[in-house]
């Protein structure tokens, strides 16, 4: 009678079964680090170093430089240098310096497997739940404890069952589903909880869309989002891994698993969603905000910088040009995605349409570089957070949307319903 997360947490503890609300110690399979290593983690590590013999397992720590790459200023460059020296000193097996892409995309392409317990030094670590794993974000101190000991304490979250019903309409993606759910739940509606997805509509959701949904579960406050295994998941691992499918540790919930609440969403009625400034919970149908003037469009981030996003964006932008008052920034989430876009000719379409294509990085999403907003500017973005000042000036505004809506909007210079283009 356990949920997916309860099963994974129990399997990583010394317990046969765990229940929501209990505080347990659990072993982690992987620890993911970003440039946070060179910000606070190495400082916290210094305090602990004399008590431990190096890191717990150098092959189970994955460090990806992604937030400010290549370094836009000296401070970032110094942080990168600290990361490189640390990785060398402790002989990290997996140190991916700048070229690989955004950590979360790299993790789902190369490292995460079903049934794993993964922690990372970034709140969007929750993304990996799409692959039937338990993953969550930690701050620097908790990460240091995992790096040293391979374990930490976890409060077993209550699980919410999110049942997706109906058939997914055209131009509606994982982004629209999660924005609608956050609007229903509010940004604290899933605080401390696991959002476990179920229902007939999930069969039709691509892995890319599931990654988007789990990625933004944290915007409802969730500790994690998680999908059950199915054929699409097995197919995903068949394409990215040489391991036999039998070796996958697929975790399904028990039929009589206990959920704190159930929430149903009929996706067949869903329109593309747009979240108005300054909160992801402010989402409305795109038709309600059509005509809003924009200055920048951004397609990228760990939320929506994948093939599903770039394919539909290119389909809309093909042989057209962005509005003269609007700039479009394209940031693929990983090197693999960048290469695939090149192979499919999508980058040519984007550049001919007037876009700037950047290297894979968090970049504009965190207001770090490659697309910072001036005062009074408005951006429509496929990223995850439209918090005040997130992408630049405190008086700038961010609207969150799927990639199709961003593509349609940059053509017209105002927020535009993408359905008229396809």
């Amino acid at each position, binding site marked *: 009678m356990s949920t997916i997360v309860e099963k994974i947490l129990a399997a990583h503890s010394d317990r046969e079964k765990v229940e929501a609300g209990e505080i347990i110690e659990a072993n982690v399979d992987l620890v993911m680090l970003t440039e*946070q290593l060179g*910000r606070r983690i190495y400082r916290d590590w210094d*305090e602990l170093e004399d*008590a431990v013999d190096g890191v717990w397992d150098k092959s189970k720590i994955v460090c990806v430089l992604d937030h400010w790459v290549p370094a836009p200023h000296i401070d970032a460059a110094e942080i990168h240098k600290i990361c490189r020296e640390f990785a060398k000193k402790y002989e990290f097996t997996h140190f991916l310096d700048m070229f690989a892409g955004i950590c979360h995309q790299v993790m789902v392409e190369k490292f995460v497997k079903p049934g794993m317990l993964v922690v990372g030094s970034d*709140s969007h670590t929750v993304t990996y739940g799409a692959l039937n794993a338990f993953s969550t974000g930690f*701050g620097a101190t*908790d990460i240091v404890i995992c790096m040293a000991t391979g374990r930490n304490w976890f409060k077993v979250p209550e699980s919410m069952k999110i049942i997706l019903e109906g058939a997914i309409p055209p131009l509606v993606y994982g982004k629209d589903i999660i924005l609608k759910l956050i609007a229903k739940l509010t*940004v604290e509606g899933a605080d401390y909880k696991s959002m476990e997805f179920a229902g007939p509509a999930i069969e039709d959701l691509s892995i890319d869309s599931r990654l988007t949904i789990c990625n933004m579960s944290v915007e409802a406050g969730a500790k994690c989002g998680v999908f059950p295994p199915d054929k699409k998941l097995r197919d995903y691992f068949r394409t990215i891994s040489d391991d036999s499918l039998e070796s996958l540790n697929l975790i399904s919930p028990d039929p009589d698993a206990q959920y704190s609440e159930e929430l149903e969403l009929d996706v067949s009625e869903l329109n593309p969603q747009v979240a108005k400034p300054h909160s992801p919970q402010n989402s409305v149908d795109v038709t309600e905000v059509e005509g809003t003037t924009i200055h920048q469009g951004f397609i990228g981030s760990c939320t929506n910088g994948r093939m599903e996003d770039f394919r539909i964006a290119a389909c809309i932008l093909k042989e057209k040009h962005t509005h003269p008052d609007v700039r479009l920034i394209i940031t693929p989430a990983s090197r693999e995605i960048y290469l695939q876009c090149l192979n499919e000719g999508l980058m040519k379409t984007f550049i001919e349409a007037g876009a700037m294509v950047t290297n894979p990085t968090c970049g504009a999403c965190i207001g770090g570089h490659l697309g910072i907003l001036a005062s009074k500017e408005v951006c429509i973005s496929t990223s995850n*957070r439209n918090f005040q*000042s997130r992408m630049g000036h405190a008086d700038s505004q961010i609207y969150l949307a799927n990639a199709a809506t961003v593509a349609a909007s940059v053509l017209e210079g105002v927020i535009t319903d993408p359905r008229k283009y396809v």
Partner: protein
Amino acid sequence: MSSVISGKVWKFGDNIDTDLIIPGRYLTIRDPIQMASHTFEPIRPEFAKEVAKGDVIVSGSNFGSGSSREEAPFVLKTIGIAAIVAPSFARIFYRNAINLGISLLELKSAPEYFDEGDIVEINSEEGTIINLTQNTTYQGTKLPPFLMDIINAGGAITAVKERIKREKGH
């Protein structure tokens, strides 16, 4: 570490996110004092200058939502904030703040009971908050003993260090 905190109240609204506490563009600043000078800059640019050691934030629900940046509780601690009272906290912020030794007290309807500038006394062990200005006392949620141990050890790193030494001794 002393579990009694006394200071002035600074009030904030609901869903205060980590980008408001410390915007992403300041996370690469290496000097902690300089980074902390930007605390709450998007909404209260004067805050970092005016706050005093031992002061307390009283906020609406879901304080600290958003990113996992430990810099958020870190800058608050650096400028002197000793405790935060709110109806609820975002999950990662909650762990981060306790790991750094900041007292967090959950109190339903907290913003209704305190005005900006009120002087309060907080006993984090007991979970009590006395509003000295208005002469009222409130009972917040006590930290579970497991987390109080972390606070009493002076933070999570010290607590783990002690545990590792104990385990090695066996």
